[in-house]
């Protein structure tokens, strides 16, 4: 069976083509979804890509959460649909309440683009089964608002439920608890600031470590997860 993975394009999405490419590299069928779609075209998985949806005006992800396509995504995600939010997509997931907390302006106030060392904290989500726990990987970041913040109670819950998925080894933006990516309690929705779709091939990225997020979800769906 071929897994169908949808990538949503909002006005201002930028890394949508890259996410589609990563999906194909990983062996799934890549499907473009449009922000005005009201049905998800039978996709098995949804990716919210990076970029500056609606210019990131107001707050990052705040206007995208109002897009028609999000209604269906939110409903299905709550029923277990695998969803990955990358960078701007992570911001949309937080704004729409699928993930807790919020991403704010980087501590240094600059947009920062660099190769980032991460530690895989939780390899039990649908998106991380191809990694080892505590594995160190390198994936680029590029964002102006990647500083993860949440209140103490939320942070305690994230730690208590093992919802932190990736941590920065050299925190680039002031994120609390060095958080680079988190999951919901069920493990089907994951959001991260680094860009795995830019680490699928050493020709165009620092490593190919990012590819494993995509292969993880595919293997899981075709039933060969470990």
């Amino acid at each position: 069976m071929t897994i169908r993975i949808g990538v949503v394009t909002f006005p201002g999405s930028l890394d949508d083509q890259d996410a589609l490419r990563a999906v194909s590299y990983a062996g799934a069928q890549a499907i473009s979804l449009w922000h005005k779609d009201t049905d998800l075209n039978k996709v098995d998985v949804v990716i919210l890509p990076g970029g500056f949806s609606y210019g990131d005006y107001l707050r990052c992800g705040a206007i995208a959460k109002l897009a028609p396509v999000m209604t269906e995504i939110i409903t299905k995600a709550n029923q277990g649909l695998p969803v990955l939010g990358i960078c701007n997509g992570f911001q949309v997931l937080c704004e729409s309440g699928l993930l807790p907390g919020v991403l704010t302006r980087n501590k240094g106030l600059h947009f920062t683009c660099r190769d980032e060392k991460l530690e895989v904290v939780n390899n039990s989500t649908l998106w991380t089964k191809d990694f080892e726990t505590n594995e160190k990987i390198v994936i680029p970041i590029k964002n102006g608002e990647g500083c993860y913040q949440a209140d103490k109670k939320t942070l305690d819950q994230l730690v208590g439920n093992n919802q932190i998925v990736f941590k920065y080894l050299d925190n680039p933006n002031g994120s609390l608890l060095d958080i680079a990516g988190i999951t919901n309690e069920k493990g089907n929705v994951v959001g991260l600031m680094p860009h795995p779709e830019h680490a699928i091939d050493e020709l165009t990225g620092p490593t190919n470590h990012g590819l494993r997020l995509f292969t993880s979800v595919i293997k899981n769906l075709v039933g060969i997860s470990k």
Partner: protein
Amino acid sequence: MIDTVKNAQENPDTKQPFLELGLKEDEYLKIKQILNRRPTSAELAMYSVMWSEHCSYKSSKVHLKQFGEKIVKSDVLMVGIGENAGVVDIGDGWVATFKVESHNHPSYIEPYQGAATGVGGIVRDILSMGARPIAVMDSLRFGPLSEPDTKRVLPGIVAGVGGYGNCLGLPNIGGETQFDPSYLGNPLVNALCVGVMKHEDIHLAKATGVGNKVILYGARTGGDGIGGVSVLASETFATTGQAKRPSVQVGDPFTEKLLIEATLEMFKNKLVEGIQDLGGAGISCATSELASNGTGGMNVALDLVPLRDETLSPEEILMSESQERMCAIVKPENIAAFMQICDKWEIIATVIGEVTDGNKLVITWHKEVIVEVPPRTVAHDGPVYNRALKRPINQDLLQKDSINISDKSNSLETDLLKLLASDGISDKSWITQQYDHFVRGNTIMSSPQDSGMIRIDEKTNRGLALSLDGNARFCKLDPYVGAQLAISEAYRNVSVTGAKPIALTNCLNFGSPEDPAVMWQFSETVKALADGAVSFSIPVTGGNVSFYNQTGEISILPTPVIGVLGVIEDVRKRIPLRYKENQTLYLLGETKKELDGSSWAWFIHNHLGGKPPQVNIENEKKLSKLIQTSLKAKVIFAAHDLSEGGLSVALTEMALASGIGLEVSNNTSVDDLSFLFSESSARAVVSIEEDKLPGFKELFKIYPGIEIGKTGGSSFKFIDHFEIELSKLKQSHSGTLSKVLV
């Protein structure tokens, strides 16, 4: 009261503020002569912006025509100078278009928005050729890092270049940043954009086909930047008071992103007959150029232009430089499909006129005719000046003032560390980290590599390499040689990555054209570029001129910035900067005792005098050929061109990028100081794996090289002289910008 054509005929003696609009008395008389009456105020507005230095090239035209006269043998040039940007064939059915543009003055007044809208403008230029913009680069010049105003200007400009390009989804693949006191009150922001398309998709800016509609689409027109182009870019700051400093424009990269996607969709569906971006001089420029390049006739109802501010007068609408707007010529039967695409991308589009069989551009305001002009006279027949030029009297003195090496007694080690920490040579990652290098997933190389490299075809792995270079100190010492050294450097940067240089563009930043000494620098530069293009056999596909870069009477250093574009058939064969352990280092090319104008002379001894290094175009070509020949057998593992700071800086950059040390000895015939710091042209350092050495040495038939050392260890060792740990080099090299800028 609206000043109609009728009114102008009936009231020929009305006083008009042509001087305030930047027109000279004789220019005003010429307009009257063309029209056979006084212009209406709307016509005056159009002529004044279109005849400004920035739009009309009135001082540079007589020089620039050499680019057409000195014919370069090239079989890649498809669209030459005169269009928005030149177009070159890059193989496999692909063509590329690239251009640099300056946005210097606005960036001083409002660094963030000035730089941002500079990027926005050049991207629309590329888009209007029919191409998908795929990458940007930027060349920046600032006052010394230690000056407080640099701390205001630099962060804003960098954030603006990044903010706009990042939000547009264009990777920034390189550029340059230099510092000199002459730029303190007049920083330079030159932005480059490159785009690609298939042969059949080339679109030109012309309005043909009687009855075809003129559609304005994109952002609404507002009162921002009115007269910005003529006043900001054409007058000196010293002579302009507050009133003549209009507000700068604010960019909206989000709207531009939608504009790009919508426009490319229109091209794909073949809905557009002609297209033009709205940059400087806004609607005046777009309508007159489209009409002039077409059959000549066009009617426009200006009152239909969607406004952000309902109080704007027709003159202001004509001159407004509101960003993120485009103008398209569309067949009536395609209007519906065109509008549907605009709807999809939520872009406002309005039919504002049509192509007529006349030869006049007629603009009405609520049915009254306010402009009726032969469009060519506005767009192309502006005034032409043959400005006085004079070699400065102190040029000879300057050239005689060669640096005396014998009394310079620092140790080589001290000099190297100091040079690495100088603002000009220091690591620029504080800047480049603010730019997205990855978006679109095709970036093969970006900073700190010698050139940017982009894969354009995922199936064939064909790619483009681009470099943007200029050394204004060399140009000050000798503008002709300096300009050719700039081409040489850009050509070499592209070559060492394995790409074959095929085209060049330029952005010429100078002081006032009314100063004969500046005009001399300019004419030498253009001559050098036109001659250089012939000798290198790569055509000049376009360029941009920015005059009046000065503070008071003090001009900036003459600063031509050169962009060279190269093609690489398989990006997987590219040659990077990073080497591995246990490789042999070779120095290709001849090192001479050429320290005048060098970074060493300037940053260590604050000396600028003498003559710049010699240009040797034949050697540059041989070096390039050697590298290209090497690709097949992959005998070169890593390479780096030698430019500012010479060998010592090149080796340090390679070592730091690789995280591996090296040791070298001076096997050349020059002294140790020159070995390390001379900036002789046509040189590169390469590193070779053990088993590739025989194959590599074969290549010396093409161009000679000598072995200078080996890679490995954790230090930079210059045998018999010094050994510096990489950590210490890194400390010197990387701390400079981040220490001063927060």
